[in-house]
């Protein structure tokens, strides 16, 4: 491996940029989902349909706040790996993972219940609602898998490759957390 004797500037690694571009596609995908919700909202006098109960407020808000808070330990992990502080990064990932797993399990449980209350085969509103929530939970699942993977990978050793992986995972989580806020807004919008 060449020791770098070039005059270097500090910059994000290409792996980080790869995650940025990937997040751009996923954010666009959520943009189309939310856009679909808004578009169909204009087509319907009653949105959601009158016979359906309004979506819950408290639990989704609480859970979203908790999930967004994990951006803090993810950021700590990201900074720690770039400073070579493996143990600190590992604990930050573990803390984040714990909250992320609780969030996911709770949300999936509520989601299965929601499909009964808002059957997609009954209305376009329910179809879009179930699809948006499902897409968000799927992205959280992917995030949980990523965090778990790097908890395992940096348990014993930190290489540049793994450090970039942690930084990319942190960026992914910041994006998913932002998207989850938008999804929450859609979820709560019938209350406006």
């Amino acid at each position, binding site marked *: 491996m060449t020791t770098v004797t070039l005059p270097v500037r500090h910059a994000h690694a290409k792996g980080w940029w790869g995650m940025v571009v990937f997040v751009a596609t996923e954010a666009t995908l959520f943009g189309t989902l939310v856009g679909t919700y*808004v*578009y169909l*909202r*204009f*087509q*319907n*006098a009653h*949105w959601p349909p009158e016979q359906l109960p309004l979506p819950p407020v408290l639990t989704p808000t609480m859970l979203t706040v908790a999930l967004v808070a994990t951006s803090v330990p993810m950021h700590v992990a990201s900074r720690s790996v770039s400073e070579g502080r493996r143990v600190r990064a590992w604990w930050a990932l573990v803390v984040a993972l714990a909250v992320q797993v609780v969030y996911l399990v709770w949300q999936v449980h509520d989601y299965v219940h929601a499909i009964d209350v808002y059957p997609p085969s009954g209305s376009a509103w329910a179809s879009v609602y179930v699809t948006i929530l499902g897409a968000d939970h799927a992205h959280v699942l992917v995030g949980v898998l990523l965090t778990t993977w790097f908890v395992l990978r940096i348990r014993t050793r930190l290489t540049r490759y793994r450090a970039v992986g942690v930084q990319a995972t942190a960026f992914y989580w910041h994006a998913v957390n932002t998207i989850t806020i938008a999804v929450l807004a859609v979820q709560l919008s019938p209350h406006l």
Partner: protein
Amino acid sequence: MSRTRLELLQWFGLFGGALAWTAEHVAGYGISDAACSVAGRQWGLDAATLQVVVGVAAGSVVIAAWAAALIAYRATNVPYDAPPPTGRIHFFAQAALLGNVLFLVIVVLDAAGSVYHLPCRQS
């Protein structure tokens, strides 16, 4: 002029107008759809006025971006393939001078068309 100021002018010149047009396009389509749709008719929107407001706001940002690009362009009088950062700043400033003209024309056409057409008339 400081390096930071030059960079800000160049990047605002390059992206400011583009983002302004993007917002105006989405807002304009949204206002027209909202005003004429099943749900939107109940809200009684004055679409034409709103479109002009959106158009003036967006157009102002585009003009500001064009001005920023012009300042950056004149402050970096080098060939386009000159060494960075000066060459790169000049290159992007020149590109932005072209782009923002197009965005301004689109915004003006949009506002004019929104006022001209009868509201909610099917094409």
